[in-house]
């Protein structure tokens, strides 16, 4: 059902064109790609930062 919703939001763009303010954001499926891509980047970024900054739960209490 989730995948149907995903497909519908993109296909809806065929009926109601998305008005882009800066060109690229009016492209077909831009919102979908941008949302997905930026989330993947943020999760990877967090993962990398975690490698450096993560400590065990009791770090400050030991």
């Amino acid at each position, binding site marked *: 059902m989730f995948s149907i919703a995903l497909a519908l939001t993109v296909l809806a763009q065929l009926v109601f064109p998305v008005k882009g303010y800066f060109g690229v*954001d009016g492209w077909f499926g831009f919102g979908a790609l941008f949302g997905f891509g930026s989330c*993947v980047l*943020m999760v990877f970024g967090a993962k990398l930062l975690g490698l450096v900054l993560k*400590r065990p739960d009791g770090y400050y209490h030991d």
Partner: protein
Amino acid sequence: MIEVLPPTLVLIAGGVLSALMRGMLRSAVVLLTPLITLYVIWQVPDGVAMTAHYLDFTSEPVEGSPLRRLFASIFAFMAFVGALFAFRHAKWYELAAAHLYAAGAVGVSFAGDLITLFVYWELMAIFSTVVVWCGDRPKVHAAGIRYAAIHLAGGVILMAGIEAIMVHTGSIEILPLALDNVGAWLVLAGVLLNAAAVPISAWLSDAYPRSSPTGSVFLSAFTTKAAVLALILLFPGAGILVPIGLAMIFYGIIYALLENDVRRILAYSIVNQVGFMVCAVGIGTEVAINGAAAHAFAHIIYKALLFMSAGVVIYRTGENLCSNLGGLYRTMPVTAVCGIIGALSISSFPLTSGFTTKSLISEAAQLEGLTVVYFLLAAASAGVFLHAGIKFPWFVFFQKDSGLRPKDAPWNMAAAMIIMSAACILIGVFPEPLYALLPYPVVYEAYTASKVIFYLQLLLFSGLAFFLLLPWMQRTLTITLDVDWLWRRGLARAWEGGTRLVDHAAARLGPIRKRIAESGGSTLARTLSPSGVLGRSWQIGTTALWVAVMLLAYVVIYML
């Protein structure tokens, strides 16, 4: 001159009175005071409504304007719903402190001069610390001290800035300040500290999650949003706020993604959301200021709602880690549904308050042609859905069956959550009444097919990313280091390192010093002893020769 009863006095009186009462009477005082305050707030006219003299200055303790009334109203409303949520479960001194804390925020809202602002600023610092300290001992003790230390230091910076401005301009009036003198910069630093701006954001995620399940509801609302109001009044259009706001936005997302503690996830997302407002103040146009004010209003409601939902879970289960929770929707449907409404609102899902308020900020960036800022805000909206919109409800209410079967919220907590949920949806579906309260006229259509489709794509595909990356999102029993490492560990490390270095150096230098002392001693003895060069008596001729040499050297140096 007094034209009106200062609204903040009502809250102060209510707070003090509630501490003296018992039982039903206290509950009545706690619940009615914010409502009376709300009425008094709407009696404050535009312009200066009260003046007083302090030293050589004319202080303006109450100054009204649409913007000030908007912030004061949401603070008073928050005090009411927070009291409804808390009054049967919180300690009496937590309730009294929460009212005095809210009084500080309402006082800041109407402060017409910097001295009044400072007084209420400190009132907030003191009573928010008391609210923090009402949490679980013993862990909260040290966190409360760190919280108080940071805010008192922030107060000192703010006061220094205010004094510099008093000396510089001779005026204490609250007006937009140009960042061309050290006083203005110090005031900005003091205000930004309360807004939890990077790099000093760690106090918020350190202290708030350790407060009581009811206390964090109050804490989430006042300090940071009063700081946003101060930024709007003092630094509208200060360009430096744009990058600071953006840094806060992404700091909040990244740290929340790494976090396991439910309320700490929400605490990081306060920094993230306040980042949107700080960025908007930096853009500084009428649309942007409207956006900052509207977003602050909506944010207080949905963030309190999220903290209420998390608070009920912690109150019922005693658990605050994602890794120990899950599957609670079975027995806590009201808490789950309200939590999901809060989560959708913070993610600015269409038909919720986040959509109709936060999009004003994106609109402002777009109108100013700030392409990079616009796309970063869009990416951040996706990130908010990722770290708070899905992560919070998923790990708490769904995910796995943790085996926990807690009861749903007590009636008063449920009522408070339902009021806040209704407000989130009302502002989302009918934003016009809120738009009418904003400081500038709003010419903005929130719901166009284009915008709705763009945001739905953005958010739903962030959801897809969340579930595809779920193995990477599983929480571990870890914390993430922040700048507060510097004073929680770094200072002690530096001190230990310093003393070790000194000891080491002393051990190394010991023999050398001894050798120098010995050789130096013998040289001195040779020179100064009765038979040494300087000790024995010289012949007159030799002395005269040396005097001549000295004189010659002097003349040569003088001539040069």
